[in-house]
């Protein structure tokens, strides 16, 4: 193993490589994170910096295995020491998806109890579940209400696929105005903050006596319509009705 030719070679090597590393990491760090709020722990850049310094040092010289082992272990230990500080920072900034204990201490039941654990998408199906439970669903392809989610959550008696009606249906607005007794509407932004076309209308007029519901999409709005209403708006195919 090569030895130091001068007792100053090692300190100068470390100093030089540290300066070089500092410049590289500072530039990279600034480019990457300068715009972000400083909620994350400090010291992470230093770990990369130290790694780079050690790497340059290792290239310039070949120290004894004991020194190398100590340096590498120190680098890893630094990361281990910094890690717990991240737990607090992340729990503070992402409370909906963190490991922090909930205030009511009901960890085992938060699946049901806390709204923030239930994505909006699922809550829609939950609301609709009462309406559709045990009833037949006539499903017209094109609805954004997934068939398998309907099956899994609403638990209908049966799902029958229907072809789209061969005549134009009333527009979503007309339907909306015609049946003011609407159950719910959801206009949900998706998780990236972009508006998602996830509007749903469940018409409850006649829902209690309905034999079946029709699920379809009109003008980008999903409708869950009981049989009497479906017949009234002349939806075909389906059993003939008064409308």
């Amino acid at each position: 193993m090569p030895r130091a030719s001068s007792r100053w070679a090692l300190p100068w090597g470390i100093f030089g490589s540290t300066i070089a590393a500092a410049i590289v990491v500072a530039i990279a760090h600034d480019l990457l994170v300068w715009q972000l709020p400083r909620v994350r722990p400090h010291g992470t850049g230093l770990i990369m910096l130290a790694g780079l310094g050690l790497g340059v040092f290792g290239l310039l010289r070949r120290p004894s295995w004991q020194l190398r082992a100590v340096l590498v272990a120190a680098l890893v230990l630094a990361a281990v020491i910094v890690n717990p500080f991240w737990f607090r920072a992340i729990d503070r900034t992402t409370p909906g998806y963190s490991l922090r204990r909930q205030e009511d201490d009901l960890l085992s039941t938060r699946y049901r109890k806390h709204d923030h654990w239930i994505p909006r998408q699922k809550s829609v199906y939950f609301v609709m579940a009462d309406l559709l439970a045990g009833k037949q669903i006539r499903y017209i392809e094109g609805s954004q209400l997934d068939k398998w989610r309907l099956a899994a959550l609403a638990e209908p008696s049966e799902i029958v696929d229907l072809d789209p009606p061969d005549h134009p249906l009333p527009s979503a607005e007309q339907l909306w105005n015609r049946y003011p007794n609407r159950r719910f509407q959801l206009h949900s932004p998706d998780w990236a903050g972009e508006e998602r076309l996830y509007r749903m209308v469940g018409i409850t007029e006649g829902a209690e006596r309905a034999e079946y519901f029709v699920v379809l999409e009109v003008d980008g709005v999903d409708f869950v319509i009981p049989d009497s209403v479906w017949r009234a708006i002349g939806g075909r195919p389906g059993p003939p009705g008064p409308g």
Partner: protein
Amino acid sequence: MKPLVHPYCYITVLHLLGSFSALCVLRGAHPAFCVSSGLLWGLAIHTFLALAALLISYVSGHLPLYDATLMVPLILLATAGAAAFYLSRAGRWRCAWRRVVAAQTAAVAILALATALALRWNLSVLSVDSFAFIELGLAFARISDAQHIGLAFVHSWPISAVLLHATSGVAGVEYLYFLMPVASFAFIATFAVAAVQAILLLGRGPRVAALATLLGMAWLFSCYFVVFQMFYVHTNWTAAIYVLLFFFTVWMALQTEDRSWFALAAAAAFAFVLVRVEAPLFLALFLCFLATQEGGGRPGIRGLLALAGPAMLWCLCVSAIVGDAGRIVDRTRLLVMVGGLATSIGLAWCMRHAWFRRCASWLQPMGLATLAALFVLVTIDRPEHMLEKSRVHLLNALVVGNWATAWILVAGLALAAPLLGRMPHQRFVWFGVVGYLIVTFDLTYFGYWRQDWGDSGNRMLTHVLPTIAWAMVVKGAAIAPRLPPAAEPRLGQEPPLPDDGCGRGRHGIGSASWGERAAESTSRSG
């Protein structure tokens, strides 16, 4: 919900199934590894059996034939078979079966404790994707709903998670919130055993092995996103588990030149493929690097067929089911994956020829360079999109992806690589891992990477992190000098056996023949 099988029994049976199967595959050798990773192999076998039942019912046009409760007798039968086979052969294999039984008892007790804790405190975290797995699983648990659903979802949702959650009713819970924490418990033990075993194989002392492993584990399992994913109902952590098992078992096969490890590697590879929709692409990448690995122990065409074949068949199945209408994967993308897997077999065929083997030293760097060149090409095509998404991907890894110091230390250690020791067959591991990371950047071309912890690209980084940690631990321990051959520790297994007559002699660790082969192997590989 009344359980058909109590969660304790569910975990125990899966653990016994996996550990006895692994012991049978390795012919009684490496009991510490087989017992510690038992639950992980058990989960994989459970998925394979459930998938077989599902596909049979699907092909025969009677989807209702698949029933989650069917898994109970199937798993019990398989467990009894594996245990009986192991115990009947233990004498012939000269296994210390009493020690195995004692280790199994301890493992079952520890897993029962982990299950009790996981059942007592439901720390699970769910997102929209989690609900998809749970709801699909619940629907599969009800025969009538399975008819409505069909299998069309496989273009976006992995079948493995759905099949596992389908058994939640069997275990008497609404969803399997206890499974990931308990599997993670088994994984921590497996990681420790894999690291110690690899370090001892390299001839370093047990004290060095213990210190390096403890340090590596302290870092890996104190990273926020790693701990988080142990409780997150999703697929990434499971994928990470099987990727590590794949790399470790392949490395052991290369290092010990014992081909039976490839059987476990094939199981891990197929489990990985079933856990993630995009996994066949990455498996193809790993296998291409494996096929061109220099030195002895590399799998031949038959080995590659075993590793890639099931994944190719599954890709063709999914392609037939989803056609061109897939969201994440469609027919074209699946055929590209099949092509990648077939390429690895083709490379294995080429490696039989001396002229091709002479090029092997630069084939792997060329592969990596091709992936990097692909990134440059797609960046030229869509510069703004690629640069922005790549920046987001990098930001997720280093700052906003909740990783804590995970990738920062990986970067730091990569920069400090000249200080680390050498690991035999490291090219296959490092080229695979670095290639994986480059491909995640390449995929930004199609991807929707966004600045958030839940971003798919950010979660996909999980898949290779435990493998990197394991390799770093081994390289870190390799800084220490090798012990003299006489002082090299044994792994507490039986003495070496003579050749079994099939040209596949097994070499006990620490034996003379093993030492020679290891030395040869070490000198041959980089």
